[in-house]
């Protein structure tokens, strides 16, 4: 008890555990690069990516001015890819934030209070989980206007039940903990106990799922755009694949290049989720 070594704060332990995982570091670096591309799009390609700028069907490498070639209308594929990054990341992160907020609120209330409130909210969650999520998504987008905010809202509406279920089960077990009882014994109100005592303890699995949720949202947006249900005034990875679909035999690169971008981004987000899971879970982190 006398010579206690210098305390090692917990926040740094998580960061150190994360940095020791090569897959996580590579994924995070790649995602930072993708985010930089999205932010830098107006500087890299100041012109509208929908504009016809060259001869159609230039293959990648054929003309140094258009490194990734041009599509059937003579639009620059590289410009479309970079501008599409903006759409994908915007939709992915916004839908995740919206879905996580909704899921946290409903899951926390259901798990903490239990009883009739819980029963009612679980029914609500089940209503959203019963129809196949993509069918529900198409219906939601088809009813509203196909614009970016609608797509974000619709994706959040079909993904929040996942978060809500995780948060609910975390709250159900955490509310029985001694420190929650101790907090009640100190006269803390429900809001303070939910937000300050339980929520920080329930977050690790939510953070992990959130990263996967971004990937899911990007895939959903791409799928919607592929089907022509995305915002018609914006280039996105999904709409590029959709546009190149009919030319798959003659100009396969038109579908393959944006497809490759989706695969890499989604893969990076999933690996990031795994790495976060390992870093936030002390037992796994200790074994490394």
């Amino acid at each position, binding site marked *: 008890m006398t010579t206690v070594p210098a305390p090692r704060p917990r926040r740094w332990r998580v960061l150190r555990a994360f940095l020791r995982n090569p897959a996580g570091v590579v994924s995070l670096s790649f995602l930072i690069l993708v985010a930089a591309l999205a932010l830098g799009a107006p500087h890299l390609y100041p012109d509208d990516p929908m504009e016809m700028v060259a001869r159609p069907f230039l293959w990648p490498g054929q003309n140094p001015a258009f490194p990734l070639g041009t599509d059937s209308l003579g639009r620059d594929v590289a410009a479309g890819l970079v501008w599409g990054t903006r759409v994908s990341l915007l939709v992915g992160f916004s839908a995740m934030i919206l879905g996580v907020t909704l899921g946290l609120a409903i899951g926390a209330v259901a798990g903490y209070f239990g009883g009739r409130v819980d029963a009612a909210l679980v029914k609500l969650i089940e209503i959203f989980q019963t129809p196949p999520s993509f069918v529900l998504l198409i219906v939601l987008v088809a009813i509203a206007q196909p614009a970016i905010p609608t797509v974000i809202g619709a994706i959040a509406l079909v993904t929040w039940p996942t978060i809500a279920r995780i948060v609910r089960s975390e709250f159900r077990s955490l509310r029985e903990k001694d420190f929650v009882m101790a907090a009640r014994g*100190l006269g803390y109100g429900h809001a303070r106990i939910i937000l300050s005592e339980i929520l920080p303890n329930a977050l690790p699995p939510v953070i992990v799922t959130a990263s996967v949720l971004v990937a899911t949202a990007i895939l959903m947006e791409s799928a919607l755009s592929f089907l022509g249900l995305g915002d018609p005034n914006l280039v996105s990875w999904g709409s590029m694949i959709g546009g190149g679909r009919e030319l798959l035999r003659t100009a396969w690169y038109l579908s393959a290049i944006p497809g490759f971008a989706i695969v890499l981004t989604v893969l990076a987000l999933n690996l990031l989720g795994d790495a976060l899971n390992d870093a936030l879970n002390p037992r796994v982190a200790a074994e490394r």
Partner: protein
Amino acid sequence: MVGTEPLLRIDGLTVAFPGETAVRDLSLAVEAGQTVAIVGESGSGKSMTALALMRLLPRSARITGGSARFAGRDLMALDEGAMRRVRGREIAMIFQEPMTSLNPVHTIGAQVAEVLRLHEGLGRAAARKRAIELLDLVRIADPARRVDDYPHQLSGGMRQRVMIAIAVACGPKLLIADEPTTALDVTIQAQVLDLLDRLRRDLSMGLLLITHDLGIVGQWADRVVVMYAGRKVEEGPPGALLEAPLHPYTAGLLGASPRKAEGLGYREARLAEIPGSISSARGEAGCAFAPRCRHAIASCRAAPPPPLVAHADGRMVACPVLAGSGAPS
């Protein structure tokens, strides 16, 4: 103290679960600056009494009768908002498990500071300064550095000290300690109990000490209440009660505690056990202890259960067989 209203007076408290009564018609009083110990084995209703006082009973439990007058109010009749202002500020509670009673994601300083910010309305800096003073008060070495430690960096005894610091932060009038030392090493136990005793005197709090350890009671309590199956079976000052227990259950508890006796050391003295288990009290019409009692006579099993009878020196006992005949042999 006779004539004045005590700090806490519980009168006829009854707590029921569906199909079971955890606390039956319990009455006791705690004076300011006094330590009252509730003693009994697991399932005797002592923890339920504490939770009922805090109005923190499990959802299925109901307070079906009785009152608990504390500083001029009946705790059982307060609404939830008023009760919330009593908890932590006027009545604080320390729980049995120091290892899990602190929130693992907040520093201990933040946890002490939070209760100060809620009840005393202190600002961030003032609460932190006061938290360091409180950690010093509960004898945590180097509190200015320890304040930023997380619970997992502290030992069990240190964590219980932090729990005590949180409990006394707002200067409560009554401190309920539910088995505060059960999870700790024996050497740490004495330190923690000494600390509680010093704080009780310094802050002139009433202390309701819940324990199953009669060894603790003799040294630290001013008054002892023995509970069995939800009822008070004996009450008195610890000296007389431990010297010459009147109720066979108290005698059984004493016999089951290791101690030196008649020239024998701890190793030689034989430990007596109480046969049977507390579950035999369920559905018993008369004295709940009768199925396990060596002295039971036929009338013990007849309803109603024996009432508490006052004896000399402010003692009370609920046993017709041994009432007046002194300690059981």
